[in-house]
């Protein structure tokens, strides 16, 4: 399957990228490409323009700020996995990254990309939500910080405007009890259901259109997961109960 035609842009600065996103009709950002390019190959997405941000210098840093760790847009998942800083300040993030796809995918996939792609079954959006992190974006009207609770609006939908570029994700430092559990069919697959614990906060993924915060004592309350080829709503709720018990057992 080959992609439909598109115009290709490779900006060198954030300003250029934001300018392109603001002026082009029907443009998509290309970062890691591990989620986007399959959609293009299947012709399930046919953007007229691709804005490739991989050439923007200085957008691949991982650094401390504001009591947490900022992970910029071009930090590859593999590098975040290996990051000493993250391991020390926020070990939940490297732990979650072990579950994201496979090593070769992680060599290209980005942390920020995975977050703003907003796949309901992805790990990192739920981790951001559990930790109450945020994403900094820049658009025509300037920069803003979007807290995780306002970031995910639907299946594969984030609250970024079409002219906004996600610059970095910010994870607050957290060293309390934490963990991630997921039930997937094969190692590295998207989860049928997943749960993330950060202290006494619980976030679920794969069981709603977006990651959702849940009550560790009653994790399936008000939960109405969908059914698909591998899991029914009942099975998803059952898995949520099993994983929550396991996460909060200690």
């Amino acid at each position, binding site marked *: 399957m080959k992609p*439909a035609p598109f115009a290709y842009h490779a900006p060198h600065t954030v300003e250029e990228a934001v300018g392109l996103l603001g002026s082009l009709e029907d443009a998509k950002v290309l970062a890691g490409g591990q989620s986007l390019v399959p959609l293009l190959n299947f*012709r399930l997405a046919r953007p007229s323009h691709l804005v490739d941000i991989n050439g923007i210098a200085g957008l691949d840093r991982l650094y401390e700020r504001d009591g947490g760790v900022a992970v910029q847009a071009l930090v590859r998942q593999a590098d975040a996995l290996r990051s000493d800083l993250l391991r020390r300040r926020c070990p939940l993030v490297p732990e979650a990254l072990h579950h994201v796809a496979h090593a070769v995918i992680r060599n290209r996939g980005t942390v920020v990309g995975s977050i703003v792609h907003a796949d309901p079954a992805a790990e990192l959006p739920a981790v951001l939500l559990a930790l109450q992190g945020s994403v900094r974006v820049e658009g025509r009207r300037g920069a803003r910080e979007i807290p995780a609770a306002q970031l995910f609006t639907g299946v594969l939908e984030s609250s970024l405007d079409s002219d906004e570029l996600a610059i970095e994700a910010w994870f607050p430092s957290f060293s309390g009890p934490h963990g991630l559990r997921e039930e997937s069919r094969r*190692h590295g697959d998207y989860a*049928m259901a997943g749960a993330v614990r950060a202290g006494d906060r619980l976030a679920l993924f794969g069981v709603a259109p977006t990651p959702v915060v849940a009550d560790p004592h009653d994790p399936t309350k008000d939960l109405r997961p969908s059914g698909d*080829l*591998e899991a*029914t709503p009942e*099975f998803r709720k059952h*898995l949520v109960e099993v994983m929550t018990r396991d996460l909060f057992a200690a």
Partner: protein
Amino acid sequence: MTTRWFGERVARREDDRLLRGHGRFTDDVGDGALEACFVRSPYAHARVISIDTTQAKKLPGVHAVYTARDLPFGDRDLPLLIPHPALTNGRTQRCLAGETVRYAGEAVAFVVADSRYLAEDAADLVDVEYEPLPVAWPLEQAAEDPANLAAELTQEAGDVAEALAAAPRRQKLRFRYERGAAAPMEARATWARWDPAEQRLTMYDSTQSPTSIRGGLAVLFGLPETSVEVIAPDVGGGFGPKIMLFYPDELLTPFAAMQLGRPVKWTEDRREHFTAVNQERAQAHEVEVAYDGEGRVTALDVDFIHDAGAYTPYGIILPIITAGQIPGPYRVPNYRVRFRDIYTNATPTSPYRGAGRPHACFVMERTLDAIAKDLGLTRDEVRRRNLIQPDQFPYEVGVGWQDGNRVIYDSGNFPGLLEKALQNLGPRPPGDHVGMGLGMYVEGTGVGPYEGAHVQVLVGGKVIASTALPTQGQAHATVFAQIVADQLGVEPGDVTVTTGDTRRFQWGVGTFASRAAVVAGNAMAVAAGLVAEKAKRIAAEHLEVDEADLELAEGAVRVKGAAHKQMPLAAVAVLSNPVRYAFGGGTEAATQFTPKARPGPPLPEGERPGLEATGYFSPIGSAWASGCHAAWVRVDPQTFRLQILRYVVVHDCGRVINPMVLEGQIQGGVAQGIGGAFYERLAYDAEAQLRNASFMEFLMPYATEVPDVLIDHQETPSPLNPLGVKGAGEAGVIPVGAVIASAVEEALGVPITEMPLSPLRLFELTREPA
């Protein structure tokens, strides 16, 4: 002849070029070919009202857009490959759909362009108007309509009705096996060139039968066979669907090449592979078994329906194989089996590794487990009491076989397999929710009609060999080299084998049904044996000894016990071809003024030049392989994840040519079996549309899902061929479904009567009221 190489773990001759990336798979053949793609029906059943290709044709870079009416053979049904008297309602598809499409994925139009990218752009512009029709789906529902009956066949051995009536104990059981897919890593591909100056059609095809493709193309295009050459180059896995012919592209790429005067290629992409390439495995069985208080089966009555899909190009071979293999390695004194082959509006079915045997095995093995449960016997004990014994061969089952003959087991030691498997399995691991899986099977291998081989010693001393059947990873070039090397007293490294190229060898059938080692292997032995005899004949004259005193070893023909009296094979090759003009390479020895070895014409009466021979092997019947798989499996009672703690195989394929290659085949087969048992499921919706046509959602096992299998062998040589070999290609996959089902049933305490399973399914089964 030595036996130095037979049975040895000879390293593969194929590897170097494949490891360096110098393999040549069909899509690798470029040569400036135009590229094609299909427009396929999204509907499972529809009338084709109109097809408008005008916009598509206008796109720059597009060379042609064909529909059925553009083809001289457009209104012709493709061949029905294996006719059978019971197939009274056979049906095959057209190259491109005419008025009706009968499965989602059926080919409707063929676009040829400068690149696949452009071809897909043009395909988007082909405007097809469909009128959707009611869909025959799922299988059980389709079976209710008599119009969907393709074939019906009942066979009986003994008197089942009487035995059922007299039975001390009886059980009725139902089993369901769902569709699966072979999914080789290389999808299909064809590349064709028509040379008008030489009037020759050349085709590269990722096929398991170049000779059949060649024959069909010659007929279709009205060409002499000698004008058509078909080559299966490196092929990235076959597993059955590539033995199916003709896929529409196999006719359309040569047609387009002839029309457009350029080579044309088509490479399938993964998404279309899921519906365009044949599938297999869906059957629903109703079984009644009668048995005595000791658990011995007295009668088995099976009634099953087989999902043919939309067409029956492969005839009814699959249900025939199932029917023939249900009794397996067990004595079933009274056996009746009826099957109905049912049309559904889904991709046609044809063999996928195992080809009807996994279902047969599942039915028999689960039935025996049910008997064991009823009587409180262990699962191994109930099998012991029913197994055919080693002194009961040849054993006739009483029904028909896929080669047109009867099912007759030639040899085996079934109790030996069971005992060894249990021994290798070892004790139950500690922990909860652990179950034992056990499955035994037989496999009819090495079907005919025949294969051939050509073997030649070149003047330089190197040996070349060829056979018509192709290779998809089974190490034919190594295994056949071993056979030839033994006959000629050389090393496998001195023998270069070509397979699947009609330019090199044009008579043969194909690679399927675990037959290559048996049939082509024996042909290699025949041909190489003839070469060895000729070498001795020539050497005997020149060494002035008796032929009977000669042996072939270390690259020479030499006197037994007096090795210094010898002639290198290279020299024999030179002498086999008397020449007038020496052209180097030692050929001076064969010119007219050298000493004559004997009176008479330079080329003796009845002799042919060259140290070469062609030989054939045509089996009288299948050589029956067998085996036993056993496993310890744990199922997590919360998440229903499957954990295979230990998996053992004891396998009998007669004499083993290369144990390393054999073990690779079995490990690979078990992996496919595990995939088919717990991960892979073709998820069709109510409209018979496939919902998971991608590797993201059709779940093939990665390494993390497949354990190392402990493989052990038993050898009961087949009396039906000189090498004593039996086939092995499909053995790994056949009983895996039964083994997993058996283990999961014990681990979770719920009856398992279906395949495939999944965590969701186990969750649901454990919650169903008892």
